[in-house]
């Protein structure tokens, strides 16, 4: 994807990705609390939010483009940092509740303030982010420090005047949606009606109204009457981007269920079930585990869904339930290593996936700080690396290759040298431009397309 096609088909030329920004400490000993656990652009791409294992949220804001340097697109600077969730202790079960932020979702902006939902395993919170850049001065009853004036000294009345001040970003928790989930919340999704949102845990999905915190509707419940019969859990869910009655949820058995909330109050019966039959020649004891869907995302158009399982990403057409329309191999060379990956638990890693703004390119992370992009039109794919050593600012990223034996080129990495502790689980794509945010452990990389910043 980073090679321009000479004399190739007309249209958008392949993107050249280069490191734009790198945020995060470079220490060898990374504190666990700094590990980034989620990344999300807002609807305009002006703001980028990250959550970490320590329960903090950091919001970056893109500086407006400078007229003097039109090619130097706006930087993402830290806009606000706040502690979203604290560790808690569940006394009934004698278990800790982690403060790790599992997901952040932005609400569409409706006034000057920005709002986002952040969730840990149990509690969802609605945060309002406001700016203050003026303050009133010249009160009659209070002096500059706020102390009450001696009334005898007040001889005339004045009207307080708004004077500019240094920009202050205030973040306040507006709603706390607690006690809705027995199991761990893995997804939240804001409905296109901008009034409701859903939260999904391993066995149930709840529908909330953004203004009501003391109750929610349970819309999916797959908990069996007898827990001994439990064989399948919910792994991810999302509302359709345009149809406020439709949502999809994925399972650990690799199936997707599209549900229509108009059909019934409890959407246990799916409207459509998307499932690909198992390939008998590839069957092993690990087949089910690697088929478990770790992430599902609707395309911006609403026509397709993107799913990520352990070895592949798949594009599904909403109109076709029998199989995906496209399947891309992320790291098929791991197929022969599944036993080792099972032993060290890497096989349970949950990778996310993302669409670009025009739904023409999909992206997902892998190991060794590699991430992969697949162009759906040209069918070309590229592997890039997010690391300090291989990313010089403004230098174009070099594609990486994993060699599986056979001919080995100069800069190839062999499968056995891959670092499985360096995994890129969380990635996000700007809603309209070729800007991507990659979370590598505690570092946030922002890559931009050097030449084209606009989508065609």
């Amino acid at each position, binding site marked *: 994807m980073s090679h321009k096609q000479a004399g190739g088909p007309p249209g958008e030329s392949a993107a050249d990705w280069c490191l734009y920004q790198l945020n995060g400490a470079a220490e060898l000993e990374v504190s666990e609390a700094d590990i980034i656990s989620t990344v999300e652009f807002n609807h305009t791409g002006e703001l980028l939010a990250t959550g970490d294992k320590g329960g903090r949220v950091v919001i970056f804001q893109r500086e407006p483009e400078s007229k003097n340097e039109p090619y130097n697109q706006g930087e993402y600077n830290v806009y606000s940092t706040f502690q979203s969730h604290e560790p808690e202790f569940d006394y009934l079960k004698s278990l800790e509740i982690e403060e790790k932020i599992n997901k952040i979702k932005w609400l569409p902006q409706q006034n000057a303030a920005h709002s986002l939902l952040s969730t840990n395993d149990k509690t969802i919170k609605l945060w309002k982010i406001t700016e203050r850049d003026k303050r009133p001065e010249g009160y009659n009853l209070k002096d500059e420090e706020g102390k009450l004036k001696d009334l005898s000294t007040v001889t005339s009345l004045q009207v307080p005047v708004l004077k500019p001040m240094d920009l202050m970003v205030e973040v306040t928790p507006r709603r706390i949606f607690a006690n809705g989930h027995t199991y761990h919340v893995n997804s939240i999704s804001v409905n296109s009606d901008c009034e409701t949102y859903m939260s999904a845990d391993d066995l149930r999905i709840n529908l909330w109204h953004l203004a009501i915190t003391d109750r929610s509707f349970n819309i999916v419940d797959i908990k069996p009457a007898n827990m001994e019969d439990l*064989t399948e859990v919910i792994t991810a869910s999302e509302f359709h981007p345009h149809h406020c009655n439709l949502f999809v949820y994925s399972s650990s058995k690799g199936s997707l269920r599209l549900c229509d909330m108009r059909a019934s109050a409890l959407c246990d019966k799916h409207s459509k079930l998307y499932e690909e039959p198992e390939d008998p020649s590839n069957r092993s004891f690990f087949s089910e585990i690697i088929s478990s869907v770790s992430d599902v995302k609707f395309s911006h158009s609403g026509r397709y869904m993107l799913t990520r399982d352990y070895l592949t990403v798949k594009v599904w057409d909403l109109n076709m339930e029998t199989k995906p329309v496209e399947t891309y191999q992320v790291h098929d060379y791991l197929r022969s290593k599944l036993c080792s990956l099972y032993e060290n638990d890497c096989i349970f890693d949950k990778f996310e996936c993302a669409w670009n703004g025009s739904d023409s390119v999909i992206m997902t992370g892998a190991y060794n700080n590699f991430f992969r992009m697949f162009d759906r039109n040209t069918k070309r794919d590229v592997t890039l690396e997010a690391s300090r050593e291989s990313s010089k600012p403004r230098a174009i990223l070099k594609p990486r290759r994993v060699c599986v034996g056979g001919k080995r080129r100069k800069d190839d990495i062999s499968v056995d040298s891959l670092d499985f502790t360096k995994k890129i689980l969380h990635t996000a794509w700007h809603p309209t431009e070729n800007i991507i945010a990659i979370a590598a452990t505690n570092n946030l990389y922002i890559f931009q397309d050097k030449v084209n910043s606009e989508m065609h």
Partner: protein
Amino acid sequence: MSRKVELSLLLYGLLLSSMGEEEGLHQTQFLDTMFVRGLKRKCFDGEEDIEGTLAGIKAIPSYNLQRQSLLDMSLVKLQLCHMLVEPNLCRSVLIANTVRQIQEEMTQDGTWQMINTQSTGQASLDRLVSTDILCRSSRDQAEGKHVPAYGTFNKDFESDQAQDSSETMSTASSVQAPRNLQSNVWEMENPQENKGNFQKSLDQIFETLENKSPNSVEDLFSEVDNSYYDLDTMLTGMMSNTKMGHCDNLETFSTPTNTASNSNCKSDLNDLDHIVEILVES
């Protein structure tokens, strides 16, 4: 730090240091090779004549051994959830499904000695598990000094022993080094008690899966945890620290480490628990 936690950590450290990482890596490389070399097709059709194709490949254990290893690994993983701060339900369910899959296949093969001759679709899991332990201990006795931790016990194995044993012997000798260490560890404590504790933990797991309470999967681990919390409120902080410590050890696996050591640790912790409680009360 409380004495009990000190003892636990000391023992865990000893166990870990006695198990080198190399043995674990050696073992898993074998397992990977087993799974890779096209054994998949034949194996998972349940055919038992792969020994023929393996004749030339000395280093690869038989399919039964490989399957047994996977079963043991999975059971240990389910048990290891005791150590984590909160069990990940998705992971537990996937591992439990893998265990069921293996046990179902073993049942179909007739390699699983059923106490109950019922042919229901889903035989009781804890019964299957207890058969495993019983068979393994009896096989250990039969083998004398050749005490592999991952023993197979199926009747097919015994009937093919003439054909099989030469291969297993050669495989065993190549993995003898790691397994000697393992069997030493097993024998460090009373082996019967170890197995008893292992058995007890497994029964716990499957009992709780059968439990009808809503939070039964979390309850999997509350039984063991509560005994710690009862002792000392300070232990709560200690416990989470030690738990995290264990997790760190587990999570730094880019070279896989032998997980059997952790199961030993767990049963040892249960023993220690008991001992310290007696000491404290007296």
